[in-house]
């Protein structure tokens, strides 16, 4: 599908990979070269079509494009009458809601730049981003976020108004610094009456090189930095993907990824404006799964972790199901696997297998797809940490073709799987319009029209990441296979060289291990003075507890359960089966089962739930030492924060298991 060119340029000696030549991306049309212009065109084209739905009071409430337009216009002019100037920054913290999208379009229409912030940001994180971005307005969803803003008030003097859209609990705040969405829109309506052409003029003014977003990267190692994403970056970033995974105006999209994440901006909001599909907003974060089922979207992007959880959950539900369901599943799953293997080997699938596969669909997999809301799914993407190939294979058997989408905040989608050319172990070929240069040390450099404009107010970091030729240095290691697919390994800095000189990718092994329903999270270590690979494993409490109950293993708490010899044996079996698929040097020799789970609140994970490896290695140094010095157990007294807010010290012995 993709062509691989080996260009040995004198300066880089890199291998450059591009997507198939004949897929070209058209330049932007001048009348739609910014997001607000795109929005206006969409409104014109499909005024009475449903633009958004929000489930409120148990019912999907609809907003047409015309209503969406009025919301945006009033809000935008409201901001203008409160003094928003072109180029100023507007921060938004909140759950996915129509109001969130409108706030962004409104700010853009007035020439502003938006900063979307994760709702679980603590005071320090929120204060840092507001301050670093020079924001002048803050949209704060509800009482919780407004309280944060009020607590930060002294530290964020540039914020002129805090604007909320869920008034619950805020009725008696009596604080002029806070304003409701409606109050701002009322100002906007007055402004509109006085200046009827103002909004259209403002919205037409922007340039494709204006900064639309400052997207703060999650910062696994340092303070978050604000990637400057221009209007044209978002438009091209979206085009690169929809060229391969087309979207249609009558598609249904479910907005549940945090808007602080570039993918929601690129595929959700930008996609909404570019294609005009309907965006459905779930009732609350807790109802996302059932809301997805009700909407049955045609495209969806989960982080790999969610797919893993979903696969684990589906398997578990089947285990808990009736004997008939279990028997049907056990009968038909291997048939689907067989067909997949034949297809992958490009062999013809014999008619009896086809009939079997078809029966399997009727009996088991079509109802299963309905349960997870994937009856209309055309483009099911996964991104974030590498997804275990086993999970991809499982969903394919269910009838959902998962496609990898690999990208970054700085240049959105780098690669993705094309229809009919999905290879489980790769992240796919480069997206159309994207070039990838693989450096001799394995680092991937990216160049495309979606590449960002540098980090806000940070020339040093910008110079490190972005070179004069427009290449973005991702810091990710990968290589290209014979079909031009990219195999993503790991962060260059996280690749580890073992005693025999072979490199291994901890993330890859972790992905495989996490397919076990009993393993929730895992960190593998090795290399340098550590001669073999070891693992620190978090058990999945719910699943292991269920297993323990069924197998009459008595336990009291998580700590107790995690150190049961029966549980160690259970986990060992799963580690062994993963080991069989790995080269000998990369096999896990020893592991410990941690007495707790990795926790973002204890800075063990990032907010996107990636491991903070350095911090973990330091924190659990004792356990690593025990595993490399052949000790049987290690005493730990770890500080833990209980769910009730207290913190205490757990004293226990964590046992070392040998595989």
């Amino acid at each position, binding site marked *: 599908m993709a062509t691989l060119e080996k260009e040995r340029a004198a300066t880089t000696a890199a291998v450059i990979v591009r997507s198939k030549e004949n897929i070209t991306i058209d330049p932007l049309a001048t009348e739609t070269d910014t997001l607000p212009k795109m929005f206006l065109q969409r409104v014109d084209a499909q005024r009475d079509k449903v633009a958004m739905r929000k489930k*409120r*009071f148990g019912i999907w409430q609809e907003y047409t494009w015309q209503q969406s337009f009025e919301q945006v216009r009033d809000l935008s002019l409201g901001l203008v009458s409160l003094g928003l100037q072109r180029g100023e920054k507007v921060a938004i913290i909140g759950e996915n809601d129509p109001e969130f999208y409108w706030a962004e379009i409104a700010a853009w229409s007035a020439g502003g730049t938006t900063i979307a912030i994760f709702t679980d940001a603590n005071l320090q994180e929120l204060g840092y981003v507001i301050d670093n971005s020079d924001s002048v307005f803050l949209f704060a969803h509800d009482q919780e976020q407004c309280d944060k803003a009020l607590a930060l008030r002294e530290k964020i003097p540039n914020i002129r108004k805090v604007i909320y859209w869920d008034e*619950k609990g805020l009725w008696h705040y009596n604080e002029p610094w806070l304003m409701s969405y409606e109050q701002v829109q009322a100002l906007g309506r007055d402004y509109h009456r006085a200046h009827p052409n103002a909004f259209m003029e403002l919205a037409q003014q922007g340039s494709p090189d204006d900064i639309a977003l400052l997207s703060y990267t999650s910062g696994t190692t340092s303070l978050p930095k604000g990637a400057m994403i221009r209007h044209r970056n978002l438009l091209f970033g979206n085009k690169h993907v929809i060229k391969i995974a087309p979207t249609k105006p009558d598609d249904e999209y479910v907005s549940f990824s945090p808007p602080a994440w570039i993918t929601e901006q690129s595929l959700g909001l930008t996609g909404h404006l570019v294609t005009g599909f309907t965006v459905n907003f779930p009732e*609350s974060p807790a*109802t996302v799964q059932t809301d997805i089922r009700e909407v049955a979207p045609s495209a969806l992007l989960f982080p790999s972790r969610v797919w893993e959880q979903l696969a684990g959950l589906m398997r578990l539900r089947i285990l808990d199901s009736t004997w008939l369901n279990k028997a049907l599943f056990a009968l038909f799953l291997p048939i689907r696997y067989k067909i997949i293997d034949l297809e992958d080997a490009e062999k013809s699938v014999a008619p009896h297998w086809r009939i079997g596969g078809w029966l399997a669909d009727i009996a088991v997999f079509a109802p299963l797809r309905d349960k997870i809301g994937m009856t209309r799914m055309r483009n099911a993407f996964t991104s974030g940490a590498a997804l275990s190939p086993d999970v991809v294979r499982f969903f394919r058997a269910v009838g959902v073709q998962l496609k990898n989408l690999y990208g970054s905040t700085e240049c959105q989608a780098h690669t993705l799987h094309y229809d009919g050319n999905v290879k489980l172990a790769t992240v796919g070929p480069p997206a159309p319009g994207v070039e990838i240069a693989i450096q001799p040390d394995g680092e991937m450099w990216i160049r495309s029209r979606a590449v960002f404009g540098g980090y806000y107010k940070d020339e040093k970091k910008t110079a490190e990441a972005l070179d004069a030729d427009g290449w973005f240095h991702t810091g990710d290691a990968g290589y290209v296979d014979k079909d031009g697919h990219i195999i993503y390994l790991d962060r260059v800095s996280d690749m580890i060289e073992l005693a025999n000189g072979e490199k291994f990718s901890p993330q890859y092994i972790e992905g495989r291990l996490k397919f076990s329903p009993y393993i929730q999270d895992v960190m593998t270590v090795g290399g340098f003075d550590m001669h073999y690979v070891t693992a620190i494993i978090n058990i999945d409490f719910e699943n292991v507890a269920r297993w323990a109950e069924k197998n009459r293993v008595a336990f009291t708490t998580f700590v107790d359960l995690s150190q049961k010899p029966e549980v160690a044996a259970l986990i060992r079996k799963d580690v062994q089966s993963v080991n069989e698929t790995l080269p000998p040097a990369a096999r896990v020799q020893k592991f410990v089962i941690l007495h707790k789970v990795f926790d973002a609140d204890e800075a063990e994970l990032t907010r996107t739930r990636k491991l903070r490896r350095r911090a973990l290695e330091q924190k659990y140094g004792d356990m690593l030492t025990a595993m490399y010095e052949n000790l049987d157990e290690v005493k730990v007294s770890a500080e833990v924060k209980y*769910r*009730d807010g207290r913190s205490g010290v757990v004293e226990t012995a964590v046992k070392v298991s040998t595989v």
Partner: protein
Amino acid sequence: MTDSTAKLEVRDISLSFGGIRALQHVSFVVPQGAIFAIIGPNGAGKTSLINSINGFYHPQQGAVLFEGRDITAQPAFRRAKMGISRTFQNIALYTNMTTLDNLMAARHIHMKSNLLTGALFFGSARNEEIEHRRRVEEIIDFLEMESIRKTIVGNLSYGLRKRVELGRALALEPTLLLLDEPMAGMNVEEKEDMARFILDIHERQDMTILLIEHDMGLVMDISHRVVALDFGRKIAEGTPDEIKKNEAVIKAYLGQEV
């Protein structure tokens, strides 16, 4: 917040079961719009007092006045219609029904359609059902119960069942809410949620709330006025600060100053 008009007056009530004197000459006045707490050790008569207010028990002596009317002789269902609703210490819900159905069931006291029109389900009966559902959905939204709307109550955690019960009490559209240990058995996070809901209800609907609670810190935080009971007798009444310093209360109940 509060004004001088009395929402509820308990006038010198005494209640005994055989030889056990559960309440002896208890009197107090709950002002309109107050959050009013009753504290006391186990067996002090707190639940008996609430049961006397909502009409489950009928005290042998004394009177209960609701909005100035003597309701001592009224049965519980009639008091509910007047606007007194309650939750229970040991959750009393239809455990095999969903959250939504539990709340809808509570709306029956406001329903006008009879068996026939309800069965045919057209015209006014249908519109009425829609209206009740709308009210119930507002409560679901208010108490953030969207994700458990269609969950069977028996499958919910204890903390969530307490929340459903509060929702059911609200579905009756009371003007006086009696909460019997709304936070018992909850972890700190659930307690904080519940306290927030109680304050929101009070703030939003100007609801008069009478609650029994063991968590002293919480009672002192959210209540405007506190009555302390011991062995069926009122031993103190005052603001949270006064109660904290009250000798009799400290001796009877707290053991030490909190």
